[in-house]
């Protein structure tokens, strides 16, 4: 297909990535390429290797074989300190559970990654409040996150991920613990705000309805990327590239 999207540089890529855990082979040569500004979904059944692929792309896991590239730079060969720096400065994360510190307030949780990156306290909290407002939970800044509903907590996680102005947000089953209406709201906010900010999103889900928020969808089966389902997404990406 001669779409303009083919000629664009990828922001993130895995090339023939293999990853095992003991005797269990999770990825058998997974190759994907994500374009800048794209909302990219990785679908697959439980145990297919989709989360492992996301963790390899995000530099959380090191592949046993193959290559991972981000922004023109090979990342699988970086040492742990360099990968930690990359994750802290260029990536944001939204997971299903356990990403917020329940003893801290909502504002503290959003400001925390900024403070770790040496952003001044006043600026960090101002930025946190701006994002909490945009996520519609501006009045929850003083609440401890342990007191929030599941949907509110996920909005805090999205605010925290976006507050860092990352190049990529990695989201692993971001609505997995939410009812469908609350999940839709979180997806609307995550994808809407990411598009506004031009942030690339790599999303892992088993839920087709969540994947349908993406521009492009691939299927992972038995550790291999087996199908690209996102024709509409490719058209959207091509239109974006042409602009």
């Amino acid at each position: 297909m001669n779409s303009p999207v083919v000629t664009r540089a990828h922001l993130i890529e895995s090339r023939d990535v293999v990853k095992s855990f003991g005797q269990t082979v999770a990825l058998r040569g997974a190759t994907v390429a994500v374009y800048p500004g794209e909302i990219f979904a990785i679908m697959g059944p439980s145990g297919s290797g989709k989360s492992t692929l996301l963790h390899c792309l995000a530099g959380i896991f090191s592949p046993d074989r193959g290559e991972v590239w981000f922004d023109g730079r090979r990342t699988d060969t970086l040492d742990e300190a360099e990968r930690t720096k990359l994750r802290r400065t260029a990536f944001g994360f939204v997971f299903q559970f356990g990403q917020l510190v329940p003893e801290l307030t909502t504002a503290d949780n959003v400001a925390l990654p900024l403070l770790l990156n040496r952003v001044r306290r006043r600026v960090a909290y101002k930025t946190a409040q701006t994002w909490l407002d945009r996520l519609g939970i501006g009045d929850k800044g003083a609440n401890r996150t342990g007191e929030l509903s599941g949907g509110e907590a996920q909005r805090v996680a999205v605010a925290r991920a976006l507050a860092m102005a990352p190049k990529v947000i990695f989201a692993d089953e971001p609505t997995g613990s939410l009812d469908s209406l609350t999940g839709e709201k979180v997806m609307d906010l995550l994808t809407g705000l990411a598009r506004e900010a031009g942030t690339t999103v790599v999303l892992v889900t088993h839920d087709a309805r969540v994947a349908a928020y993406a521009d492009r969808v691939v299927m992972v089966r038995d550790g291999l990327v087996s199908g690209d389902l996102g024709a509409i997404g490719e058209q959207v990406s091509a239109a974006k590239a042409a602009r």
Partner: protein
Amino acid sequence: MSVPLTLLGLLEREPSHGYDLKRDYDAYFGRGKQLPFGQVYSTLGRLARDGKVVGGDAEPGEGPDRKPYSITDAGRAEVDAWLADPVEPEPHLQTVLFAKVTLSLMLGKPAEAYLDRQRSAHMRRMQELIELRRNGALVDALLADHALFHLEADLRWIDVTSARLTELAAVVTPERAQE
């Protein structure tokens, strides 16, 4: 969607002209498939013949038909019975999807590739519906939700069937399995 019963239901709110009925039908139930005027008037004619509505005297003014219609007791009873009756939960035991998968296997054609194409088509439709849901009015959003849940059910079936194609092939092509 039963057009006669829906029009009867709209008439139970208040007596209306054919034009008003068409406008409300299109606004709430049409969703991209408008009701032709001819069908409105022919339906009202049949409902009048069956004693479910009565037509009043035509009023002066512009338009094809200025005759107001009112629902009768018989029409009201029919609407009540319809609303109280749950829609048949269709088991869809012989869907086109199932037929295509089974025939593909019987003919030795790639059933998995068909399921992948079907999954892709379903995902594209879901993407369109999510856009509609995001940007549309509440009525559109709820209708999109209904379609999305059905597509989701199909997709689950596609996933389960993909995972069991080998088993299904053994059932529908026993002669091949024995080879």
